[in-house]
């Protein structure tokens, strides 16, 4: 299931010829992500490795993990939306079994700077930590 989600995002991103259009799309994705409630924007929910702030929380509903996240930067918020689209509403096992190498398909390294890549990795690490805790 995760792979089909990634393929779908890949198809969307590949629609754009130039980076600026791609960013416009990512910014729009970010705008579609609901804001996180202020009470959750605290240091303990911050993701390490991001140059901008990213807050990430997780709740378990039945056997499914529901993530909510936000960022203080528009482009990062778009990337957050992409990551959440991939990982949301899965079981802890599905997340833990997922080989993150497959994410390379998205070619994010071509559109985000090395500093920001560590932020994306930080987010995935935190998602896996949540999955481990809820497994």
């Amino acid at each position: 299931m995760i792979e089909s989600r990634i393929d779908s995002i890949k198809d969307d991103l590949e629609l754009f010829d130039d980076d600026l259009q791609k960013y416009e799309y990512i910014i729009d994705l970010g705008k579609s992500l609901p804001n996180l409630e202020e009470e959750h924007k605290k240091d303990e929910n911050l993701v390490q490795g991001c140059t901008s702030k990213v807050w990430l929380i997780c709740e378990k509903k039945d056997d499914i993990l529901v993530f909510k996240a936000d960022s203080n930067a528009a482009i990062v918020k778009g990337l957050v939306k992409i990551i959440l689209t991939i990982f949301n509403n899965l079981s802890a096992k599905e997340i833990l079994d997922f080989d993150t190498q497959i994410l390379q398909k998205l070619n994010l390294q071509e559109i985000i700077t090395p500093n920001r890549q560590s932020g994306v990795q930080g987010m995935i690490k935190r998602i896996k930590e949540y999955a481990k805790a809820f497994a």
Partner: protein
Amino acid sequence: MYKNDFPFFKNSSVTYLDNAATTQKPQAVLNKILEYYTNYCSNTHRSNHGDANKATKEFEETRTILKEFINAKDESEIIFTKGVTESLNMVASIFAKEFKTIIISSIEHHSNITPWHMQNRTLHQGLEVVNIKENLEFDFEHFEELLKANPNSFVSITHVSNAFGVKHNIKKIAKLTHKYNSYLMVDGAQSLAHFEIDVQDLDVDFYAISSHKTYGPTGVGALYVKQELLEKLKTYQTGGATINDVNFQRSLMLSSPYKFEAGTQNIADVIAFKEALKYIKNIGYKTIHTIEEEIYSYLHNELKKIENIILYNNVENSIVSKSFNIKDINSEDIGILLDKMHIAVRAGHHCAQPIMKKLNIDGTIRVSIAFYNTKEDIDIFIKALKKAITMLKD
């Protein structure tokens, strides 16, 4: 059109406005690096063959030129280092660590904060911080209060703030510092490319110089040390080229500057640094100042026209760098979009997190110019900035 002197601009389509991070290098500097490696690559101050002598002569010429450039009294006062950060760390660890109190300002970048934290000095525990005023200027009254309460201190202040381009009155700072029997180190990373430094006139005790921010190669800098302090300065690192005589009972060190330049130096880049200094001299600070001032006020006026802009410094107290934000837009978002439009600026905290926290911001967008920039560069930047803002607006 000075861009013609810089190969970077022939090979790149980027509008380069990140000169406070590093400057581009003129052809003469690049030629000199190549010349050393292809014609007389040898170690300095050791071997006695022809090429080694040539390398030593070229290397020492940089010292002579730099001495004249900053009006030092003697070549022994010029010590080559890796750069400003190493110069600051060196003075912190071999001279200033003995002082009970270190005084810095709240606009310093990390290189002039962390060396003191490494000595376990924190605010009011061996470290005092001079306030800055609302317009980001140095608060002389607070400085004097701190000096009065802590005479015999070590003061370390930047000449020009990297994040905001605010220029401090170093002559006045030096006068007050010495009045209270203290010593002054100045971080000159953002200075030498833009205006003349006269260490005797400023009456500083230590002055840190960067090559790569002054059109020279990276990995090279210099530390000026006032002559009468050289004897008080212990050796930083020892080893090859610092020694006069060694047996297993003791090591006799050479005198300054050699006793501070352990190991094989960054020879090619030191040699090439002098070409950068010569290049600046040929153009002249007067010309550089005239060009930079004109572009800087043009930039300021164009930025002022942008809706919802927050400018942190004013033209009168700052040089070459404009730091700003757009209300409700993250600075790094703008930085990324400008990059995609081939504009190089810096966005973020500029390695000066304490001042950002004081201003209650995560960072700024910093546009920093050099004399090779043009009004056309500014026009291209402003157009791209407007586009980025439109893309990011809700």
